[in-house]
C-alpha cells in the first residue's frame, strides 16, 4: 500500500548555525512524511526497501541489524569476556572478578576477569553502536530516496543499479570504505584503547599483585606522577621525564639542522659548475641510502664499540690505554660523548637524503634570478643568502618540520647505536634515550603500559603542537604558491 502523505522537501540549509536543529528536523520529516515502509524502517532495518520491492537490499540491512543486535543483547563471550551491552557496562572496571577459586578435588580453577579484554570489547561494542546508528540512517535514507523516486514517477533503483552506482557516482564510497574500516579497526580503536590505558593501573607490576589481568581506572594519577613521583613507575617518570624530554629536543634540533644544512652545503658543492665527476660524487653519497639504515647503524656501533676496530687501533697506536666509550654502551661511559657521537653519526646517515632533495630544488631555481643579481653586482655569498637559501627553505619548510618531528621519534638511530645508554641505576631511561626509546623500554621491557601511554600522549602533544605552530607560521603555508 502506497503512502498518500504529501512529501515535503528536506529543510534547506540555513545561512549558518543550527546544524543540530536541522539534523533533528530532517529526521523528523523523514519519519512524518515517509511512506509506511520508511516509517517501519526506523524500527526494522530494510523494511522500507522491502516495501519498495528492493528485497535484497532490505535483507542485507535486516541481517546487519540482526547481527549487531544479537551481539549487543546476547553478549557472546571470548575467553570469558563478553561483548555487547555487558562489555559497555564492564568499561567501568568495577566489581571485576578477582578469581583464584580452586577446587582441589575436581581441578576447577576460576581465573579472574581479563580487564584488558573488557576495555577493548567495551570500545568495540561502542563502535558497533556507532555503526548501528550509521546503518540505521543509511537504511532510512535509502527508503526515503525510494519514496522520493516514486513521487517524481521514477522507479526505485534495483540492487543491480545500486551496485553499478558504486562503480560510478559513488565510486569514492566504494574506494574509501576499506580504508575507513581498516582505519577504524587498526588505528582508531587501538588508539582509543591505548589512550585509555594512560588513565589506568595497567602495568605488569601492579597486575602481578592483583592477578594476571586485573587493573582499574586511576584517573589522571599517571599524569600527576610525572610531577609528584608517585605510583609504580612514578619515580622513574618524575626523575627522568624532564632530562629525557630536554635531550629529545636537543637531539631533534641538532639532528634536523645538521642534516638539513649539511645536505644543502653538500648539494651546493656537488652542483657547483666546473666540478668534475658529479655523478660519481652523487652515487657515493647515495650509497649510504642504498644500504638499509639499520645495517649502517649496527656497523657503526661495531666500529665504535668497546672492542671495535677504532678502539683497537687507538690502543695499538698507544694513544689510549682503555677503550673509549664512544656510544655509552658500558656503565660509566660519558653521556656527553655518546650524545655528540649519535648526532655526528646521524649526520652521516641523514645528510644524503637532504642532499638528494636539495639537488633537485637547486636545479629548479630560475637562472634569471642569478643573472639579474649578477648584473646588480651581487657577490656569490649574497646570492646564496638572498636567493638560494630562501628558495630552498621556502620549498623545504614542510620537509624541515616533518624531519624535526621524525627526529623526535627517531627510534632506530638511538636504539641501534646506543640502546639509550649509558644507563642510570634503577631507571629504564638512559643518558641518550629519547621519549620514544624510553617508551619502548617502559612498555616492552618493563611492561608498564599505562606509563608508556602517558609518555606517548606527551610525545604526541609536543610533536603536534610544534608541527601546527611552525607550519602555520611558515611562508610555505601562508604563501602557498608564491615565492617572492
Amino acid at each position, binding site marked *: 500500500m502506497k503512502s498518500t502523505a504529501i512529501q515535503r522537501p528536506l529543510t534547506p540549509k540555513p545561512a549558518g548555525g543550527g546544524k543540530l536543529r536541522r539534523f533533528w528536523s530532517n529526521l523528523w520529516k523523514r519519519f512524518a512524511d515517509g511512506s509506511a515502509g520508511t516509517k517501519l524502517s526506523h524500527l526494522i532495518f530494510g523494511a522500507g526497501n522491502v516495501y519498495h520491492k528492493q528485497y535484497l537490499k532490505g535483507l542485507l540491512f535486516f541481517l546487519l541489524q540482526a547481527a549487531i543486535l544479537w551481539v549487543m543483547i546476547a553478549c557472546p563471550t571470548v575467553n570469558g569476556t563478553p561483548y555487547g551491552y555487558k562489555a*559497555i557496562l564492564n568499561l*567501568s572496571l568495577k566489581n571485576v572478578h578477582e578469581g583464584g577459586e580452586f577446587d582441589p*578435588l575436581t*581441578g576447577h580453577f576460576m*581465573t579472574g576477569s581479563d580487564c584488558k579484554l573488557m576495555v577493548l570489547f567495551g570500545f568495540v561494542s561502542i563502535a558497533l553502536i556507532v555503526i548501528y546508528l550509521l546503518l540505521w540512517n543509511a537504511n532510512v535514507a535509502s527508503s526515503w530516496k525510494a519514496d522520493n523516486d516514486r513521487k517524481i514517477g521514477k522507479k526505485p533503483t534495483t540492487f543491480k543499479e545500486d551496485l553499478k552506482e558504486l562503480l560510478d557516482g559513488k565510486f569514492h564510497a566504494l574506494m574509501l570504505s576499506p580504508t575507513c574500516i581498516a582505519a577504524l579497526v587498526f588505528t582508531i580503536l587501538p588508539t582509543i584503547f591505548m589512550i585509555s590505558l594512560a588513565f589506568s593501573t595497567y602495568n605488569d607490576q601492579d597486575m602481578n599483585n592483583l*592477578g594476571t589481568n586485573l587493573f582499574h581506572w586511576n584517573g589522571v594519577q599517571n599524569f600527576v606522577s610525572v610531577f609528584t613521583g608517585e605510583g609504580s613507575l612514578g619515580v622513574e617518570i618524575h626523575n627522568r621525564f624532564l632530562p629525557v624530554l630536554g635531550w629529545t629536543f636537543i637531539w631533534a634540533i641538532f639532528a634536523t639542522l645538521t642534516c638539513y644544512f649539511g645536505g644543502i652545503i653538500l648539494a651546493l658543492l656537488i652542483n657547483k659548475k666546473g666540478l668534475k665527476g658529479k655523478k660519481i660524487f652523487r652515487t657515493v653519497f647515495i650509497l649510504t641510502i642504498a644500504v638499509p639504515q639499520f645495517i649502517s647503524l649496527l656497523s657503526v656501533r661495531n666500529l665504535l664499540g668497546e672492542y671495535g676496530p677504532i678502539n683497537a687501533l687507538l690502543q695499538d697506536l698507544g694513544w689510549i690505554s682503555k677503550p673509549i666509550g664512544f656510544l655509552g654502551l658500558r*656503565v*660509566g661511559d660519558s653521556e656527553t660523548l655518546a650524545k655528540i657521537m649519535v648526532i655526528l653519526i646521524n649526520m652521516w646517515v641523514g645528510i644524503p637524503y637532504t642532499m638528494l632533495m636539495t639537488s633537485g630544488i637547486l636545479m629548479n631555481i630560475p637562472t634569471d634570478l642569478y643573472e639579474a643579481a649578477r648584473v646588480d653586482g651581487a657577490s656569490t655569498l649574497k646570492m646564496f643568502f638572498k636567493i638560494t637559501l630562501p628558495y630552498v627553505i621556502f620549498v623545504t619548510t614542510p620537509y624541515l618540520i616533518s624531519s624535526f618531528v621524525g627526529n623526535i621519534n627517531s627510534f632506530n638511530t638511538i636504539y641501534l647505536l646506543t640502546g639509550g645508554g649509558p644507563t642510570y*641505576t*634503577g631507571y629504564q631511561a638512559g643518558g641518550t634515550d629519547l621519549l620514544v626509546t624510553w617508551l619502548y623500554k617502559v612498555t616492552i621491557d618493563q611492561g608498564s603500559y599505562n606509563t608508556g601511554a602517558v609518555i606517548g600522549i606527551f610525545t604526541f602533544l609536543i610533536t603536534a603542537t610544534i608541527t601546527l605552530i611552525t607550519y602555520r607560521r611558515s611562508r610555505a603555508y601562508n604563501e602557498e604558491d608564491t615565492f617572492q
Partner: protein
Amino acid sequence: MKKLIAMTLAILMALGLFAGCSGSGSDGGKDDGVIRIWVGEESAEFYQKICNEYLSAHTDFGYKIEVKGMDTGSVAGTITNDPTAAADIYTVAHDNIGKLASTQCAKPITDESLIAQVKADNPESFQSVIYSTLNGQTYLYGVPYISQALFLYYNKSLVTEEQAASFEGLREAAQAAQTKAVTVTGDDGYNMSFALLARKVSDKSTTVKIFEGAESVSGGSKGESNCQGDDTVAIVRWLQAYAADENGFKWASPDGWDADLDKDNRGVLAVIGGAWHYNTAKAALGESNLGIAMIPTFTLTKEAVEGLSAVQAGDVYRGGTFADCKCFMINANSAASKYAKEQELIKYLSSKDVQNASYLECMNVPAYVGASEFIKQCYTDGKVSESEYNLAAAQVDMAEWGIPQPFITGTLNTYYYSKNGPQVFRAMIDQTAYPTTGDQILSETSSLEGVRKGLYLIEYLWNHGVAPKEFPAALPEKA
C-alpha cells in the same frame, strides 16, 4: 551527525562508568580430548615419543597427547601474555613459578601420589622453591625434572685438568698462551652468580642472602638480603685484581664468548656457562679440545682482605652458581576434566626412569637426588661420551655449591635482574665510576669504600628497585 555520535558516546560512556558491572572470568578451557605439553625445543621429539609409548601402554588414558618444543627462556612471558593460548602442561625454569602462580596462569598440584614422588625424589633446595600460595593455602605448583647449574668449559689443548681446577691455574695457562684466562657468557644477574655466590671451600659458607624467607604472596615480604659481608667485599676485590691482570678475567667481547673461546682465536681459555651452551662450546673448540669441570676455586690475596676482619688471606673459595631446575606446571586455564590425567602424566614424565632416558637422549641432567650414580654408570657402560659425562657430572657437583634462584614472585625477579644491580657489579669489576640517579655518582669503585658503596647499592636495588637517594654516612659492615 558528528554531534549526535559524540552525544551517544558520551551517554554510553557515562552509563558504562556509573552502572554496575557484570564481572567476568573463566573456569577453564574446553576439553577437546587432547592434552598439550610444552617442553624445551631440544626435548620435544623425545617427550612426544615417551608420551606415545605411555599411550600405547595405557589404552584407557582417554586423551591424545601433543608435545611442542618452546624456548624455555621466554616461555613464561608467552604464557602470561595469553595463558588461554598456552599448553595444558608447560615447562618453565623454577624461578617463574611465583609469577605464574600469582598471575593465575598455573594451577596447584594436589595429587597425593605425585606430591609424594616430588618429596621423595627431589633435593631440599628444589623443594623450597616449587611451592606457592593460593588464597592463603600453600600448594605444590612445579614438578622438577631437569637440573641445571653453571660450570666451566675450557680449552683442553692449552689448559690441564689441574690448572682448570683453580682460577690461579687458569691464569698460569693463560700466561703461557698469552691470552685471557676466563670469561662468562654474559654480564647479567644470572652470570654474576659465579662470583657473588662463591662459597668458602672449607665449610661451603657464604654470607650472601638473596630474598631469604621472602613470601610467595605478591606484594608480601621480600625476605632478607645481604651482599655486604666481608667475604663478598673480598671476593669483589679479588675479582677486580683478576680482571685487571692481563691474563685474568675478561667480559665476553661483542662478537660473543664463543668467538673468544674459538680454538683458532684463543681470545680466552675458558668460559663459565651452562648446559645450553654445550653445542656452541663444542663448535668453538671441537669435541676433542672441550674440557668440562666445576667452576674453579680461588684463593683470597692479602690485597683482597686488607681492611677486612672476617676473612683471611689464603682462604679458598669456589665460584658459585644458581642451581636451578626446570619444572612441569599445569595451566590454570586447562579444562578441569583433564586435571587428573594431567597429574598422572606429569607423574610419569618426571619419574626417575623418564629423567634418565631424557639424559641419555637429550643431555637433560636429571633433577632427582642421586642422579650422579646413574650418570656415572652410563659413562662406565659407554652409553655417553666423556664430555657428555663431564657435562652432567659438573652440573650435579655444582648443584651442591649453588642455590636455586629465589625469585618466588615476579617483583623479586625484576628487582634482582632488571634494576641495574648487574651493571653496578660490572662497574665494580671494571673499577669504573657508576652514574646512578644523576645526583648520586659512585665516583670510584676501586677503593674499599667504593666496593662497599657498590655492594650497598646492589643490595638496596634488590630491596627497593630504585637507587638510594644518598649513601649512608657509615656503610653497614655486615659479617
